[in-house]
Each structure stands twice: as structure tokens, then as C-alpha cells.
């Protein structure tokens, strides 16, 4: 992959150039309720915000939000048009981290079979957006306390799956071009980049190693026997009951998860007839598996949390060859019951080993 150097001000200019042709989302910090600043995406409208948040760890929103909307019209009826009416303006997203980029692989497997070699149906709404979305990812320069990407086969910096990647170093960024789409984003902007010096590469390696070590260090207590892609979480009901005791089934973990792909179709009246909307759903809700007539294959909350975690580690692995927990830690951040996925996994695996 081709790598160049870009200074901070020049990056600002480059983003400004993109904003002329694309919808561009950039990372900034929001001061929410006078709490500590929350990093999240902002749409560039006019000038590029002066203070971009190009450091730290993953943002509040996952990259999935840009290709899989929380609510979206997927059909209007009655209609005789068999073609999907997809709105997918070209969009650049600056700021997804390695855990987000890895998360998109799940969407590719589930929704875009012809390119990603599964036997699933191709979904026009995801595919068009995926095609028109440019991922400008970012190395993590620090770990938040819930980060655990290195426990699930990841690193705090992307290795693949991005169009451009930015690795922050003191004087600017190492810019890696990861795809043809990435080439397109930097075409005509040779004036803003320069040749990479060996010191730049060394500086990036030092930063990457130090963040990797930090993630490893803070997760030392959560280590479990065996490889993450071989976990057997078919634990006893008692061990799952222990894990579930503080769960209220709110589904916050589903919504912030970079690999939760599930949805519910909801129909409603609309101008000229009816419309079908696709809405993010949560497998933790009681109604998720309920059938007409009241049957329910997972009536207990502990069965539903069991299903959620095993979906990440076992079911996705068995179906798509992909463990779909990317260790972003957002489910831990979002949980009002303070359930820690790492503790949950450790508890179930340890109890199972004892039995």
C-alpha cells in the first residue's frame, strides 16, 4: 500500500476539498450535559471544523450507522417498480477505528454475498451505501478503559478494509492509501502530501506498539484459556443467570455494536399508499423471538443475553467464518447495568471448565 506524509493543516485542506464533492463526516468532541467531552461525528457544512478530534480511541457511533440506518424506508407499496429506490450520496467518513472497519466485514458477509462469497441475498440498500461510502480510518492513539481489540484478534490500528488510513504522528499523519477509492480521494492533491520519511514510519510504529501494549495491559485480568475464535460458551443456565443479573434488556449494547446487523420491518401508511421501514432491532427484547400465538424460543432474559454473546463468538464464526466481536468496548460503555462483556465471557468459560 502506498504511504505518504500529510501535515495537519494540509489534512484540513484535503477534507475541505472532499466537502465540495462529498458528504463528509469528521470527528469532533461534543460537550454533553457538562460531562467530559464525547467524541463523535459531525457533518461538514461549509467550513471544516477547526478542532478535529483526530486522537484517542473509537468514537461513540460506529461506522455501521452510515451504511445501515437506524430507520430507513425500504419499500413503498403498492408499487410495480421492482427496482430498489436507494438514496446513497457519496460520503466520506473520517474517523472510524480498526474495530469499526472490522465490523463492516460482518455487513459485507450478511448483505453483499456476490462480492464476499457467502450464499446470502444481496441487499441493495446496504450495497449502494457501502459502494458510495469512503472510509478514512484512524489509528488509535490511546485506549479507553473498555477497549479490548487485542483480545479478539485485532489491533488498535487498521490493517485492511479502509480506503485511506491516518496514523497520527507529532508533525502530522502517515496517510496510507488502501484502495482505488482511496486513490480517488487523494488524486489531484499532490500539493498537500509529501514523501514519507523513515522517521515518520518509526514514530508510527512506536505509537502503535505503545497503544497495543496499553490495551494488552488493561485486559490482563480478563484473559481466558483458549483462543477467542474457539470459545465454547455453551455455559450452564446458572453461569448465564450470573452474567445476566444486572441486565435490563434495554438493547443499548445492540445499538452501539459495530456488528449487530439485525432489524425489524415495520409497515405504515404513507403518501400514496404504504411504506415499509427497516429499523434496528435488539435481540434482548422479549418480543424479538415471539411468534404469533405467543410462542417464544427465548422467553428468559438470560437466554437472550446468552444468544447475543454466542452470536458474536460462535454463530457468526460458524456461519460466516468471522468472530464478530471486534473488542471496541462500546457495549460496556453503554450498559446501564455495568455488564462487562470481558467479565461475562471469562465467567462462562471458567465455570464451564470447573464443571
Amino acid at each position, binding site marked *: 500500500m502506498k504511504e505518504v506524509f500529510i501535515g495537519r493543516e494540509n489534512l484540513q485542506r484535503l477534507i475541505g476539498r472532499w466537502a465540495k464533492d462529498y458528504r463528509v463526516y469528521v470527528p469532533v468532541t461534543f460537550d454533553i450535559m457538562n460531562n467530559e467531552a464525547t467524541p463523535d461525528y459531525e457533518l461538514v457544512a461549509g467550513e471544516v471544523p477547526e478542532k478535529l478530534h483526530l486522537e484517542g480511541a473509537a468514537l461513540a457511533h460506529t461506522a455501521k450507522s452510515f451504511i445501515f440506518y437506524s430507520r430507513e424506508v*425500504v*419499500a413503498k*407499496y*403498492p*408499487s*410495480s*417498480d*421492482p*427496482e*430498489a*429506490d*436507494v438514496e446513497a450520496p457519496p460520503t466520506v467518513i473520517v474517523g472510524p477505528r480498526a474495530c469499526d472497519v472490522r465490523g463492516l466485514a460482518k455487513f459485507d458477509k*450478511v*448483505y453483499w454475498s456476490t462480492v464476499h462469497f457467502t450464499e*446470502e*441475498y*444481496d*441487499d*441493495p440498500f446496504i*450495497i*449502494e451505501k457501502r459502494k458510495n461510502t469512503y472510509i478514512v480510518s484512524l489509528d488509535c492513539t490511546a485506549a479507553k478503559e473498555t477497549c479490548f481489540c487485542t483480545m479478539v484478534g485485532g489491533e488498535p490500528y487498521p490493517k485492511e478494509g479502509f480506503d485511506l488510513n491516518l496514523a497520527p504522528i507529532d508533525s502530522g499523519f502517515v496517510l496510507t492509501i488502501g484502495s482505488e477509492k482511496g486513490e480517488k480521494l487523494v488524486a489531484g492533491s499532490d500539493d498537500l502530501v509529501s514523501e514519507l520519511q523513515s522517521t515518520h514510519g518509526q514514530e508510527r510504529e512506536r505509537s502503535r506498539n505503545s497503544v497495543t501494549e496499553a490495551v494488552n495491559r488493561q485486559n490482563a485480568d480478563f484473559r481466558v484459556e483458549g483462543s477467542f475464535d474457539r470459545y465454547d460458551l455453551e455455559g450452564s443456565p446458572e453461569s448465564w443467570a450470573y452474567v445476566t443479573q444486572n441486565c435490563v434488556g434495554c438493547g443499548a449494547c445492540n445499538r452501539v455494536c459495530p456488528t449487530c*446487523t*439485525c*432489524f*425489524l*420491518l*415495520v*409497515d*405504515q*401508511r404513507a403518501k400514496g*399508499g*404504504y411504506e*415499509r421501514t*427497516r429499523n434496528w*432491532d435488539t*435481540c434482548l427484547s422479549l418480543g*424479538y*423471538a*415471539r*411468534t*404469533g*400465538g*405467543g*410462542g417464544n*424460543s427465548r422467553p428468559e432474559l438470560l437466554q437472550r443475553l446468552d*444468544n447475543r454473546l*454466542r*452470536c458474536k463468538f*460462535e*454463530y*457468526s464464526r*460458524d*456461519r460466516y467464518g468471522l468472530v464478530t466481536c471486534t473488542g471496541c468496548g462500546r457495549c460496556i460503555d453503554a450498559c446501564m447495568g455495568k455488564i462487562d462483556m470481558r467479565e461475562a465471557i471469562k465467567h462462562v468459560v471458567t465455570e464451564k471448565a470447573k464443571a
Partner: protein
Amino acid sequence: MKNLYRPIESVIEDIKQETPNINTYRFRPKEPVTFAAGQFVELTVPGVGEAPFTPSSNPNVTDTMEITIMEVGSVTEALAKMKVGDTVGIRGPYGHGYNLTDFEGKEILIIGGGVGLAPLRSLILALFDDIDRYKKISIRYGARTPEDIVYKDLLPEWEKMKNTEVQQTIDEPHPDWRGTVGVVTVLLDDLPLVTTVDVDVPFHAETAIACVCGPPIMLKFVNVGLLQKGFKPENIYHSMERNMSCGLGKCGHCMLGEYYICKDGPVLTAAQIEKFGDPF
């Protein structure tokens, strides 16, 4: 790209009442929706929503489709209020059908409970179309009361078909009922416990095929019963329908472990699901 979520307009051509809360609807889709026995479709009641159903008509009839539907939830209740001439939506078919070439030359046991006979009817009609290819067809059906029996007029006709038998039971004794009483598993009692090649026994459990559809509790006990009788897990087909929302292997609602029932099913063999313990 083709929109997978678009329902195809379909007119209700006929409504036949089967029981106080079960009707059989005949739909005529504006574009053909052809299916194989065992596959299902998503039926839209405009503005209310979708629900998955397995057609109950002959899959070899392609211009119309019949579905027998019980009133159990919002979509089915709204459908029950609709009239002949009204328009609904259909998309599909989804999932795998029964592999009928595997059934050839074999004895086929069809076990239905309640409205669970409805999806099996499309299988039965498909089998009837090629009846000489199958050694025997035994239809065993249980309903709660005589009133709850679906296809009351068709069952005697089916019994007249070549190499076909029909046995029925109701759950509780009833003044109008002269036949067998007990839950549907009592209809397995004539099957011998051990496997045998004796020509006088009703079924050769080692090779016979069983197709089962009904409430989860029934599937569970019929499964145990058939395995005890010596049926091979790979020859027992269960209708594992759940609340499929998309039917496309995406929305996640019907997931059973790594399976999407909508895509890998809705018919799964006992061999495919035995690792889940009690998945019913």
C-alpha cells in the same frame, strides 16, 4: 438492483372458513409467485405488516396460491377482516422445500397438529401429483376438538387416494366424536418400537420419511416418539417456522444458533437440530 422487500400485489379471490378462527384464502398475485412444497412466503396486510406463511395449495398450480391462516396476531386479525376482492401483498418464496426426490420409493408419514396441517397440505398435494413414486402416504392429524379440524371436506377425499391412509385424533373426548382420542402422539402407537423389515408392519422405520408440523410442544414429543420408533434423525423433517421478518437470512429474528430458519429451513431435519437439545 432488485428490491427484496417489495410485496407483490395479490388479490383475495376466495375465502373459505375452516374453523371459527381459521380461514383458507386464495390469492392471485399480479406477478407469478411459484414455490416448492415446504417453502414459505411473506404476506403483507397493507399498512399493518408482514407475517410468514407456508402456502397450503398445490405447488404445481402457479397462478394462484392458497394459504390457511389462523387468527393469532395483528396481521392475521387484520387479514380476517378483509374481503374477497381486497388486495394484500406477497413476496417470496423463501427457504428450502422438501427434497421430494429423496422421498421416492419410500413410506411417508405426515404428522400434523391443529393448523399445522395447513403447510403439510401443499406437500400432500405435491405427493398426490406423483403418487406412484411413493410407497405409502400416511397422514396423521390431531386437533383439539372436532370443531378445530381443518379441511373437514378434504380429509375423506385424501383417504380415497391410492396407497394413502388418514388417521385422526382429538385431544379430549367429545360427544360428536367416534374416533381416536388423545394428543397426536397416540397416532404413533401402531408403529412398532423396534426397527424391522417385516412386510406386515405399517412402517419401515429405517427408511421411512416423517414430515411433522404443529405447535412446538407437539414437535418435541413427536420427535422423541419417532426416534424411539427407530426413525433416522435425517429422515424426520420438522417445520421450524419462527417469526421471520425479512425471510432473507438477515433480520435475525428466526435465528437458531448459526441457522437462519428462513434460509436454511423452514424445514429442518432432526439431525440438523439435535445439537441444540430442545430447540422446539
